[in-house]
C-alpha cells in the first residue's frame, strides 16, 4: 500500500489532520448555525418587538392626545397627536423594514391600512369638533376613532405577539441546534478519536511490527542461529533492511562454516603432529593436573592418555626432579631469563628395555591477559647424542688406555737400557736411545693432553672454583722452569707491582696447567739470552695475566689458529716438544672460567699471551 516508512508515517499524520479538520469544521458549522439562530432572534425579532411596543405606546399617546383635545386642551392634544404620530411612523417604518416572520407582512399591511384610516378619522374628528362642537366630536370619537385606535393597537399587539412567539420558537430551535451541535460534535470527535486510534495502531504496528520481528531475528542470529531467515514482506525500508540482513546472515554462516572447517583441519593437523612427534609432550594445567600426553610421552612413562587425564602430575609421572622444575616454572612471577650457566635438565629412563636419555624443557602457557594457564613439558630424546658422547669418551678412554699400555713397556725398556747400558753401545747408540726416551715422553704428554682436552670439551671436567691468590699461583708456575731457564740464560721476571694480593675466582689446578703451558711455550720459543716477563694486573672486575717472551713472534695469520687443536706455527726454529694441544686446552680452561685468552705479537718482536679471570 504505502511504499516507504515516510509515506506510512505521513499518511498517518495526514489522516489525523483531516479528522481534526473534519471535527473542527463540524464544530464551526454548528457555531455558525447557532450564531445565525441567535442573530436572527436578536436582530430580527427583537427589532420587531421593540417597534411593536413603541408603536403601541405611540398610538396610545395619540389616543391620549385626542382625549385631551376632546377635553378642551386643543393645543396639548394636537401636539401629542402630532408628535406621537411621528413616533408611530418612525417605528412603523422600522417595522416595515423588519418583516421576518411568516404572517407579519399581512399584519403590517393591515396596520398600515387601519392607521391610515385612523389618521383620516382624526382629521375628520378635528373637523367635526371645529364645525359641530364637542358633543358630536365625542360621539364621533366613540363611534369611529376609538375602535380604529383599538384595532391598530391590537394589531400592533398581534405584531408583538407574533414576534414574541417567534422568539420563543427560535429560542427553542437554537437550543435544539445547540443540543445537536453538542451531540454531533461529540459523535464526530469520538469517531475521529476512534479512527485516529485505529489508524495510529495500524500504522505503528505496520512500522514497529517488522522492526520488532527484525530485532528478534537479529538477536537469535547473534546467539549463533544463523540459519533463521527474516520473513518480512513489506517493501519499505524495513523490508529492504530485512532482505539485506538475510543476505548478511547467510554469508556469515557460510564463512563461519568455512572457518570452522579450516580450524578443524588445522587442529587435526596440529594434533597429529603433536601425537607423532618423537619428543614426549605433557600438558598440565595450573594445578599440575595432566590435560594431555602424546604418544611418545605415553611410551616413555608407560602410561595411557585416557587413564591419566585430570590426574595430578606426581601421581602419574613419578619424577620429583621434573615436578620441582615444573613448580618453579609455574610459580615465578616474571619470565626469568635463564641463567646461561644453568644446565639443561636430563633424565634417563628404561623404555622398552633400552636405556634412553631425555632433556627436559618446561614452558608455561599464558592466556591473553597474561594469566598462567598451565605448562607444557617437552622431553627431547637425546639418547643418540648421549650415546655418541659416551662413545666418544669411551673411545678416548680406550684410545688413551691403548696408547698408555705399550708406552709403558717402551718407557720402561728404554729407561732400563739407558741405565744399564748395552754392551758395545757407543755414544751414537746412547743418543738414539735418548731420542727414543724423549719421544716416549712426548707421546705420553700427547696422550694425557688429548684425554684432558676431550674431557674438558665434553664438560666432564669439574672446575673447582676457589679464592686464589693469582700472583702466588703465577710464581708457583714459574718455579719448576727456573732451572731450564737458567740453562738457556733466559731471565724470568715478574713485573713490578704495588704490594698486596690480587684474588681471583678460579680452579687453581687448571689455571696452573694454563700457566705451565704458557711458560713452557715461552721458554721453548725464546732463544738463549732472551727474557720472559710476567705481569698480573687488575682492571675493573677482571684480572689480566700475561706472559711475554722475546722470541720470534707469531705472524698475524696464525694468531687465532694457534689456539686450535694440533696447530703450531710452522717454523724451523720451533723447538721440539708439545703436540699443539697445549693452547687448545688452555683456551678451554680459560673459557670455563668465563675469561678470554689471546696473543699479541709481531714477527721478530716476541709474543705476549694474555688471559683474563674474574676478580674477587
Amino acid at each position: 500500500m504505502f511504499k516507504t516508512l515516510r509515506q506510512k508515517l505521513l499518511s498517518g499524520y495526514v489522516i489525523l489532520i483531516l479528522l481534526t479538520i473534519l471535527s473542527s469544521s463540524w464544530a464551526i458549522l454548528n457555531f455558525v448555525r447557532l450564531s445565525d439562530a441567535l442573530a436572527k432572534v436578536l436582530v430580527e425579532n427583537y427589532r420587531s418587538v421593540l417597534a411593536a411596543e413603541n408603536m403601541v405606546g405611540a398610538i396610545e399617546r395619540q389616543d391620549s392626545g385626542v382625549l385631551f383635545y376632546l377635553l378642551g386642551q386643543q393645543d396639548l392634544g394636537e401636539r401629542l397627536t402630532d408628535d406621537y404620530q411621528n413616533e408611530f411612523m418612525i417605528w412603523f417604518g422600522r417595522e416595515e423594514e423588519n418583516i421576518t416572520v411568516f404572517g407579519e407582512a399581512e399584519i403590517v399591511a393591515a396596520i398600515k391600512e387601519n392607521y391610515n384610516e385612523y389618521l383620516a378619522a382624526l382629521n375628520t374628528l378635528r373637523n367635526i369638533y371645529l364645525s359641530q362642537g364637542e358633543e358630536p366630536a365625542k360621539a364621533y370619537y366613540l363611534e369611529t376613532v376609538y375602535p380604529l385606535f383599538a384595532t391598530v393597537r391590537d394589531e400592533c399587539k398581534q405584531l408583538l405577539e407574533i414576534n414574541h412567539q417567534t422568539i420563543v420558537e427560535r429560542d427553542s430551535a437554537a437550543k435544539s441546534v445547540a443540543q445537536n451541535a453538542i451531540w454531533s460534535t461529540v459523535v464526530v470527535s469520538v469517531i475521529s478519536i476512534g479512527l485516529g486510534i485505529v489508524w495510529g495502531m495500524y500504522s505503528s504496528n505496520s512500522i514497529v511490527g517488522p522492526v520488532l520481528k527484525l530485532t528478534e531475528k537479529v538477536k537469535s542470529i547473534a546467539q549463533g542461529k544463523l540459519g533463521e531467515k527474516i520473513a518480512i514482506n513489506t517493501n519499505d525500508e524495513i523490508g529492504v533492511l530485512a532482505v539485506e540482513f538475510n543476505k548478511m546472515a547467510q554469508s556469515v554462516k557460510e564463512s563461519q562454516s568455512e572457518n570452522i572447517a579450516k580450524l578443524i583441519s588445522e587442529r587435526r593437523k596440529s594434533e597429529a603432529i603433536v601425537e607423532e612427534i618423537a619428543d614426549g609432550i605433557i600438558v598440565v594445567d595450573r594445578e599440575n593436573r595432566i590435560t594431555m600426553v602424546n604418544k611418545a610421552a605415553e611410551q616413555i612413562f608407560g602410561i595411557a592418555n585416557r587413564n591419566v587425564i585430570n590426574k595430578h602430575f606426581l601421581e602419574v609421572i613419578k619424577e620429583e626432579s621434573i615436578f620441582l622444575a615444573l613448580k618453579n616454572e609455574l610459580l615465578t612471577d616474571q619470565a626469568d631469563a635463564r641463567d646461561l650457566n644453568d644446565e639443561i635438565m636430563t633424565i634417563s629412563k628404561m623404555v622398552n628395555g633400552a636405556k634412553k636419555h631425555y632433556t627436559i624443557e618446561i614452558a608455561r602457557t599464558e592466556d591473553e591477559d597474561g594469566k598462567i594457564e598451565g605448562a607444557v613439558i617437552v622431553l627431547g630424546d637425546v639418547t643418540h647424542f648421549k650415546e655418541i658422547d659416551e662413545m666418544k669418551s669411551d673411545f678416548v678412554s680406550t684410545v688413551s688406555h691403548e696408547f698408555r699400555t705399550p708406552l709403558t713397556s717402551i718407557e720402561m725398556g728404554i729407561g732400563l737400557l739407558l741405565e744399564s747400558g748395552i754392551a758395545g753401545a757407543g755414544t751414537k747408540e746412547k743418543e738414539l736411545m735418548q731420542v727414543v726416551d724423549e719421544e716416549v715422553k712426548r707421546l705420553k704428554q700427547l696422550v694425557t693432553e688429548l684425554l684432558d682436552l676431550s674431557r674438558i670439551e665434553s664438560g666432564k671436567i669439574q672446575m673447582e672454583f676457589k679464592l686464589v691468590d693469582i700472583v702466588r699461583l703465577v710464581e708457583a708456575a714459574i718455579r719448576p722452569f727456573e732451572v731450564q731457564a737458567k740453562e738457556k740464560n733466559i731471565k724470568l721476571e715478574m713485573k713490578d707491582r704495588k704490594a698486596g694480593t690480587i684474588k681471583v675466582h678460579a680452579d687453581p689446578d687448571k689455571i696452573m696447567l694454563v700457566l705451565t703451558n704458557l711458560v713452557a711455550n715461552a721458554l721453548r720459543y725464546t732463544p738463549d739470552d732472551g727474557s720472559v716477563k710476567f705481569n698480573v694486573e687488575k682492571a675493573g672486575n677482571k684480572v689480566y695475566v700475561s706472559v711475554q717472551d722475546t722470541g720470534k713472534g707469531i705472524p698475524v695469520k696464525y694468531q687465532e689458529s694457534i689456539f686450535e687443536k694440533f696447530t703450531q706455527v710452522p717454523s724451523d726454529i720451533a723447538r721440539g716438544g708439545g703436540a699443539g694441544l697445549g693452547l687448545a686446552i688452555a683456551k678451554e680452561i680459560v673459557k670455563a672460567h668465563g675469561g678470554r685468552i689471546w696473543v699479541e705479537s709481531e714477527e721478530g718482536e716476541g709474543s705476549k699471551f694474555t688471559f683474563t679471570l674474574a676478580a674477587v
Partner: protein
Amino acid sequence: MKKVLVVEDEANIRLSIEICLEQAGYAVITAEDGISAVEQAIESKPDLILLDLILPKMNGYLVCEALKGETATRDIPVVAISARAQEGDIKKAREAGVVDYIVKPFAPEELRRTVRKYIITEEGKE
C-alpha cells in the same frame, strides 16, 4: 730379600717391571689375573703388591677388596698401577684400600721410588 707380587695382564709390561725390580734387588712373582693374584698372595705372602686395576675375570678393585678381606693378606701394602688417572678412579682405588697409585706409563726410577716407599724392612722404612 723382599718379595714383590706383580699383578698385570700385559706380558710386555710384566717383563719390564720384573727386570726393573730384579735389578733393584727384589724377588718378583707375577700373576696374570685377579684370581691367581689372590692365590699367589696367600701362598707366597709378598712384602708389596703391584696391582693393575684393569684385569680380566676379576677387576683390580675386587682383587684389592679380596686381599684386604683375607687375614693372610690384609696387611700387605697394595700399590695400584693403571692407565686411568681420573680423580674418580684414584678415589675408588683408595677406597678399595691401595696405599698409592702410579699412572702408566712410568719410568723405571718412578717405579723403584714408589716400591721403596712402601716396602717395610726389618729396620723400618728405608
